[in-house]
């Protein structure tokens, strides 16, 4: 039976704990303001070694996701994400306020947000009576005075108040349940509350295509390009064709676009480029083209020109290519099987 690793560096403290059956059996906790980046991983190693545990013994990670110190929250979360990803084990995220709560009754949970403000929430066991939010310290003091029956939790010296001792590690251990588990480890992100910037941004990467990408590539090609390429054609370009290069773009591991191009001596030709309609206008095409240019520059013999054909009616695509410094050179009559003309576009890669 493995152990659960619990981590919190969301405020001034550094806390690392090991739990079995929901109970903490080893813990390290001390004030480490601005020393968390140096110390956290070392402390994790220390606690594992002291308890004669190897990485294979860790069966889950439970971590505070904020709100709190931006850097502090990111430190524990980056460590927790990396562990959960590496070992392919569950990752549990708890609010930094939620883990301050008292074992019983109703708790006002507070973290100093600085600038005369506080991160504030009210929890009754696992339930939030007031969700995590930001309040001015004045509002907080008013709320506290109005609710003398509630427990006051957190490091509240900055408000001139006294609080009860919190046991964040025990609560991180207790809360490591399905409700707190994040299915996709990559999607784990801190909660900042302040200045949330762009919630819908995608986590996109571009890499060389793999055979397992084929079903999605076929689907995207058919829908976006009316491509008649068969799985066999695509497989050939991906695996066997010596002049072909094939890249895929992924969002959280899901294939959303691809680029197939040929390099012949000093020029490279785009064979197909497509992005799933639901993911367009998000810069994915730019990333794919970037990968192509990178590949061209890594060739032994320098690639001097990028070329492509695009349907005359496809004005969006032509605009995209113009933005990327492709210039229309000529029109190829009845280039496509259905009789449509193609615009032939070229971009020079010669610098200077």
């Amino acid at each position: 039976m493995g152990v659960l690793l619990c981590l919190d560096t969301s405020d001034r403290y550094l806390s690392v704990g090991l739990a079995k059956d929901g109970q903490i059996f080893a813990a390290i906790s001390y004030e480490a303001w601005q020393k968390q980046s140096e110390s956290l991983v070392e402390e994790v190693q220390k606690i594992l070694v002291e308890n004669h545990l190897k990485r294979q013994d860790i069966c889950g990670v439970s971590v505070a996701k904020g709100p709190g110190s931006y850097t502090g929250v990111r430190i524990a979360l980056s460590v927790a994400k990396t562990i959960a990803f590496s070992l392919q084990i569950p990752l549990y995220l708890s609010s930094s306020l939620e883990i301050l709560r008292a074992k019983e009754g109703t708790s006002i949970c507070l973290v100093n947000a600085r600038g005369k403000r506080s991160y504030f929430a009210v929890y009754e066991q696992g339930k939030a009576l007031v969700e995590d939010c930001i309040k001015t310290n004045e509002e907080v003091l008013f709320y506290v005075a109005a609710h003398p029956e509630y427990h006051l939790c957190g490091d509240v010296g900055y408000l001139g108040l006294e609080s009860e001792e919190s046991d964040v590690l025990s609560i991180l251990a207790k809360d490591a349940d399905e409700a707190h588990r994040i299915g996709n480890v990559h999607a784990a992100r801190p909660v900042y509350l302040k200045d949330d910037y762009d919630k819908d941004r995608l986590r996109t990467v571009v890499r060389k295509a793999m055979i397992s990408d084929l079903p999605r590539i076929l689907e995207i090609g058919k829908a976006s390009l009316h491509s008649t390429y068969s799985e066999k054609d695509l497989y050939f370009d991906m695996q066997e064709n010596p002049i072909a290069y094939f890249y895929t773009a992924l969002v959280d591991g899901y294939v959303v676009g691809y680029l197939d191009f040929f390099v012949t001596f000093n020029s490279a030709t785009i064979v197909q480029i497509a992005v799933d309609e639901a993911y367009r206008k998000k810069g994915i095409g730019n990333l794919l083209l970037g990968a192509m240019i990178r590949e061209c520059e890594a060739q032994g013999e320098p690639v001097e020109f990028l070329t492509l054909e695009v349907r005359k009616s496809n004005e969006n695509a032509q605009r995209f290519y113009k933005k990327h410094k492709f210039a229309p050179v000529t029109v190829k009559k009845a280039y496509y099987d259905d009789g449509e003309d193609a615009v032939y576009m070229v971009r020079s890669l010669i610098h200077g």
Partner: protein
Amino acid sequence: MAKILAIESSCDETAVAIVDDGKLLSNIVATQISVHEKFGGVMPEIASRLHAENITVCLEEALTEAKLTLEDIDAFAVTRGPGLIGCLHVGLQAAKTLAMLYEKPLIPVHHLAGHIYANEYVGDFKFPMLCIVVSGGNTELVLMRDHMDFEIIGETKDDAIGECYDKVARVLGLPYPGGLPIDLAAKQGQHVYDLPVPDAGAGPCDFSYSGLKTAVINLVNSLRMKGEEVSVPDMARSFQDVAVGMVVDKSIRAAYEHHVKQIVLAGGVSANSYLREQMGKKLEGSGIELIIPPLWCTTDNAAMIAKVAARLYEQKIFAPLSLGVDPNWKIDHWKEF
């Protein structure tokens, strides 16, 4: 032979690369440019947030492309500095965590050493060598008498050249990052605006860009107040002539003074076509070889970090798990961490 996984997160690119005995097996970069475009510059807090989101995706893709698992990796390398502090923290945590879990060495790499060694993907180094390090955060001339032997012989006293490009681009209404748009606009323009060549005051190889930036801003504002139209191509050309001219002149002088065999360009601004062209012209018939990095190495990536890490692995230069970041790490102090 050693397989090394390297992580780079010093500014606005989250990157992971894997090398095996010098051969690049994967090179993943999750760029944030589209996010920072909106702000006309890198916002440190936002960049740090994006790193925290991107890091495991990049790790996974780098391993997948290299067809390796973490158990196969012999050492984990990371950019320790210089860079934006919040950004550096994220890469550091990931690298330290992996080194701890898999009980493998942790290798701290200097970001600018990475940019310099990116040129090793193009050709072998010959010493003494002059490195022209020009980027959004740095402008310095570094003399190398041997591998991993760096002496800073000149540096900027205020802004970095790339930072200056970004600010000037913003004033001219050109997009971020400003390097390429100014470079392109300058090709269409003439040097008609009179801009002062800033005097760094200090050593003969030192630079100053703050004054040039202010001069452009003041000139543009005064022309607009007078109701005169500012020609963007002409202003871009006038600015670029001075900004790049300063780098070229000081570099050539330093190269002769130190009898170098080679000059290498490094950093984001080394993508600038005018800089590449001018350096090439000035060195014609000089017997000094010029190495220009491939364009993909002028932006931040982890392949260049892995290149340096492979060298440090041979020398067994490893860091303890208590390693911290250093946003102002000097290249000549790369062994101190």
